[in-house]
């Protein structure tokens, strides 16, 4: 087989070009223009690729990494134990937190004895790499379940998301537990 490297076409679209002189018909360009018009008019009648956004929403991929969510377990308790591994692993240093001890009577709120009193993610720094999700030993933080994007804001401060925006809503946790039962 004499397949020199120059003759291999990996994409199968390889075309030999030549610098030969154009014939009179080719130099007129009229035929080329008519061909071009034919191509464009075919597109005129083709099905349109547009998604009419507010009415139609493009489905997210199941692995799409969007806005973070701090998970609750089946009983509605927060998973996070404020170990700080997510903050440590974050390449953009977007996560900061403050731990607190669980008081008696708060067992229905927090699963572990230690919980995050303040948990903040700076969405301007975050690169949505998902390393926090991988680092978390308690399955607490997920980027894939919210199926939301971080919305635009007018002020920088508005991009620092606290627990009020990050923790999974209770209704969702209830729905999850119902689904499991």
């Amino acid at each position, binding site marked *: 087989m004499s397949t020199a490297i120059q003759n291999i076409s990996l994409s199968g679209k390889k075309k030999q070009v030549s610098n030969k002189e154009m014939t009179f018909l080719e130099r007129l360009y009229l035929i080329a*223009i008519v061909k*071009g*018009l034919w*191509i*464009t*008019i075919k*597109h*005129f009648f*083709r*099905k*349109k*690729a*547009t998604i*009419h956004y507010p009415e139609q929403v493009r489905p997210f991929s199941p692995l799409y990494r969007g806005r973070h969510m701090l998970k609750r377990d089946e009983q509605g308790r927060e998973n996070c134990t404020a170990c700080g591994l997510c903050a440590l692993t974050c390449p953009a240093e977007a996560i900061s937190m403050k731990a607190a001890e669980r008081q008696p009577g708060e067992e229905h709120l927090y699963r572990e004895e230690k919980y995050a009193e303040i948990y903040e993610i700076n969405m301007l720094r975050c690169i949505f790499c998902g390393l926090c999700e991988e680092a978390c030993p308690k399955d607490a933080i997920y980027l894939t379940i919210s199926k939301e994007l971080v919305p635009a804001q007018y002020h920088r401060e508005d991009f620092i998301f606290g627990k009020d925006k990050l923790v999974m809503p209770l209704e969702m946790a209830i729905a999850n537990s119902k689904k499991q039962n």
Partner: protein
Amino acid sequence: MESAFIIEKSIFIVVIFAFTMIMAMYSTWAERKVAAFLQDRVGPNRAGWGGLLQPLADGMKLFAKEEFEPDTKNRFLFFVGPAIAMSTALMTSAVIPWGDKLHLFGRDIILQATDIDVSLLYIFGIVSVGVYGIMIGGWASNNKFSLMGAVRAASQMVSYEVAMGLSIIALLMMTGTLSLKEISAQQTGFHWNVFYQPLSFLIFLICAFAETNRTPFDLAECESELIGGYHTEYSSMKMGFYLFAEYANMFISSTIISILFFGGYNYPGMGWALEHWGVNVANSIGIAALFVKLCFFIFFFMWIRWTIPRFRYDQLMNLGWKILIPLGIANIIITGICILVFK
């Protein structure tokens, strides 16, 4: 009788004016729609059904925009530029025969604002003056890009006017008249001039693209090199006037192409319709036929825009001076020989 004539003509002029404006307005909408459809998109569809109110929204936006003026000593000329562009674009519609005639209120209404003997020359004259709008505006902007756009527009228009005139001469040798009304009256049935003068039509079409500054000859305003060319410094409705003038010009040149080469208001079976359905119905269909033809050419202008890339400046000049003008002269000679042989 005199006053009735004046009233008739005034109403007609107002109607034509409004019609030209509406056509120019909806050409902007059609341009965006056609562009979108040719690129597998849907285009503007929010304002009104299918985006039909989009031109109104655009116009309102342009009126409400802040009016910016560059620091120039020629404020007056800066104002005059768009005014000239707009008025020359609207003046050409005066000599266009929109139809034969209608019989209303006991009198024959000729569907043409004025039938001067040299209407084709009139159009050429107005078009050749139209370039001043671009030149003066571009120069008064006090901006290098605008000046470049103005200079390009001027040389392009002057060069292509020559080829356009030559292409028309061959046609005039056949028709023997400069009056648009007579030219359209000659093309009854399917005796359209395009079948007798295909080369002349081709040259005229190319020159029409160049004269209206449309792609592939939009070198006066190419965004990639001149950031808008002559209207870089314009904002608000002054800018709107320039854009509007471009679309009005496109509408007028489509109309002239359909009148000169595609029979104007004539359609096959017009004589039969005149006999059986009367003057009014037959000529109304004629107006509709002209409208369909000119709409096709407006569409063609847009279609070409999304098919052919812009010419380089030297290519433009080569095409104009070295190809179209010799072709035009050759066409004149061939037509002359044919007329001598066949008549």
